[in-house]
């Protein structure tokens, strides 16, 4: 167990090292950082002074280690555009993104797994066929198109739900939540559906495929031959074996949700980190881009680590060696 986790941790550290190197190189490749800091009419002396202050003339390794040191203290410097510490910006906007991702993950996992099991068990029923065709359409619909359509129908046409933004925000300590007010829920519904739809269909199809795969195995046939009830076969034997690979999907799912939150947040003007990132890319606001990259990588590394550990717990073949 310890060596397994140590190995995974080592791998995670490697990932973070590579990602931090990439984000470090952003600063050096994408534009001259000095240009982004001084006014247009700064003199040469001023520029040199800033270069010196920032240590831009130090050896590259020194700069990198300083960068890593700063990251470890969650210090990414000031945003070029809004002149505020990037870590504050991320911390402020993180709750919005995490809550959106959380709600979407619940929606996509719950419906994805339930419908996936249904279509896996009743694979020839009409219900399954309809769900499957719809799910293919779901995979084919770009997130932003779904978002626009939902806004048009539910916000503008029917006026049931707000079209954009995050309403009903309440502060709980440093965490700003919108999940304890009705207004908050009203404003999260459309973005969460938009964000979860693609992942939902993906999970549905994966669970179904996995279920069908498991249903063909010998141990299911053997369980039948022992006269076990369909219920026991479907839920005790098939489902558990289906869910082992699904754990990986959960990891990927959350990753995908974080990624597509960039799109959803843009469409719904959801004030999270994704919207901030896309604005930063538009303005080539390197500190935010770099920080977001490191942050997202860290998030995924943590998710993957948790998934690996879950795998370890769930699957005796890994846990006990084979």
């Amino acid at each position, binding site marked *: 167990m310890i060596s397994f986790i140590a190995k995974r941790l080592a791998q995670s550290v490697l990932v973070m090292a590579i990602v931090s190197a990439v984000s470090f190189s952003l600063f050096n490749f994408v534009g001259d950082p000095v240009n982004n800091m001084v006014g*247009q009419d700064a003199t040469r002396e001023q520029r040199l002074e800033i270069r010196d202050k920032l240590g831009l003339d130090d050896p590259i390794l020194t700069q990198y280690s300083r960068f890593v040191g700063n990251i470890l203290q969650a210090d990414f410097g*000031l945003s070029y555009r809004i*002149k505020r510490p990037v870590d504050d910006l991320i911390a402020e906007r993180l709750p919005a993104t995490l809550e959106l991702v959380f709600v979407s993950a619940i929606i996509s996992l719950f419906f994805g797994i339930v419908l996936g099991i249904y279509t896996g068990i009743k694979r020839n029923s009409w219900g399954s066929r309809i769900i499957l065709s719809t799910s293919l359409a779901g995979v084919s619909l770009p997130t932003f198109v779904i978002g626009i359509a939902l806004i048009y129908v539910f*916000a503008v046409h029917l006026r049931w739900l707000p079209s954009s*933004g995050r309403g009903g925000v309440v502060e709980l300590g440093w965490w700003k939540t919108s999940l304890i007010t009705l207004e908050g829920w009203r404003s999260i519904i459309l973005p969460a559906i938009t964000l979860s739809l693609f992942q939902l269909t993906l999970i549905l199809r994966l669970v179904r495929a996995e279920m069908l795969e498991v249903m063909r195995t010998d141990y299911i046939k053997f369980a039948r031959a022992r006269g076990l009830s369909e219920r026991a076969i479907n839920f005790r034997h098939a489902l558990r074996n289906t869910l082992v690979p699904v754990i990986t999907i959960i990891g990927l799912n959350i990753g995908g949700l974080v990624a597509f939150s960039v799109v959803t947040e843009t469409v719904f003007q959801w*004030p999270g980190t994704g919207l901030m990132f896309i604005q930063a890319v538009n303005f080539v606001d390197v500190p935010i881009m770099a920080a977001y990259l490191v942050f997202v990588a860290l998030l995924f590394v943590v998710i993957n680590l948790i998934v690996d550990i879950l795998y370890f717990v769930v699957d005796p073949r890994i846990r006990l060696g084979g």
Partner: protein
Amino acid sequence: MHVKHLLTASVLTLSAASPAFAENVLRWTSQGDALTLDPHSQNEAPTIAMNGQMYETLVTRDADLVLHPELAESWEAGADGWTFNLRKGVKFHDGSDFTAEDVVFSFERAKHEASDYKEQIKSITSMEIVDDHTVKMMTDGVNPILPNQLTSLYIMDKGWAEANDVLVPQDYAAKEENFAVRNANGTGPFVLESRAPDEMTVLTRNADWWGEGMFPGNVDKIEYRPISNAATRVAALLSGEVDFVLDPPLQDLKRIEATDGLTVKTAAQIRSIFFGMDQGVDKLRTSDAEGNPFKDVRVREAMNLAIDREAIKRVVMEGLAFPTSMITSPGVLGNTPENDAPVGTDPERAKALLAEAGYPDGFSVRLDCPNDRYNNDEKICQAAVSMYARIGVTVNLDAIPKSQHFPKIQNRETDFYMLGWGVPTLDSHYVFSYLLDSEGSWNAAGYNNARVNEITTDIATEIDAAKRTSMIEEAWTLVQADMPYVPIHHQVLAWGLAASVDIPIAADDAFRPRFAVMK
């Protein structure tokens, strides 16, 4: 108000115990949030608009654009400068008194290297505190329009600035965030309650404001939420989430107008949209032509004749524009109906002129265009591309955010660009000194006419109004003949509002919440 607001409020009372009930909350949106709350850091419209709700200036303009007293009750010109008599009994939001010291401090701060306002008040050489409520500002020679130049120069509290170490505007090289970036302490009608940049800014009514009861406004609370996507912004208005959109896309105005409970307000704006052609360099950077075609006035005329301003007005601007051949709007001293009449469209003549100038097959050039600054800016440029294609000029469009576009103009790195120019002083000097003087900081066209340069210098100190006006007219005649720019139109402002809200619209596009009335 709406049910959902009551719900929100009730939840808020549960969690935060806020007593506010039945208050007039104005929720509004626009494309871009203020970059900072530091009043001297950025000279940019959304930033000025945001700060103007909390900070005040000595002199202001009302919706009629006439100068009105604000923190200065009166002012008069002397031989060596201006004297301002300050309003008494004014308090900053933190309770400290407003005095002459604060004015001097704020002006000094605005003159600092890191300030974006240093140009506007560079004529002030020194200041003198006559008494607690009188300030004298010495100028370098006579400056007849100094009060006009102060309408966006906000006054900060010296004590507050000292206590919070914000004596100078944000220094970008500094590692630390400036306190003033997210906090404000002005004398204005609204007090900052909370601010999350690019997300939500909440302001509440300043009960101790000096102007309490003097203005019609009855707004108790302002919630500002920037929405960068135009369609989403309109959707928010259509679905009733906001009461006021400062900059709805023109194409959606009909829909807003037709929706129950919503109205549109329009006004002619003091802002002209035009293309600049760099005639100053010897070789264009982005052209296949030998040398610089724009140096030839025939080419510049052809570029003007190619544009179908009427089509742009009708199709791109939904009728909301005044086609023109001048780069400054009616209302600005110097604009005349004769000069303002649009040039006709004549592609044939344009082709002939190009051939005459030695470009029978046209040439290519890149057009730099902002995509988030003016009404339908990018679409105007796109329309221009096809119009220029008709006369054989291949225009490659590069539409980018304003933050990247404007440096190109300021650094003179562009051959052909779109620019819009408003005139806060309502005087042509503002146009000449920035756009037409050979030293003008925004004269990326490289226009250089000795007589125009001379007039620009002279009118800065000329006090005889009639003489000054004729000088301005003379300069405009020269400019119109030289055609250094391709004027397109004067913008028309349009606001989208809930019918329950009445806010006066003004040519300067400024939101004046103290006049906002909610029914």
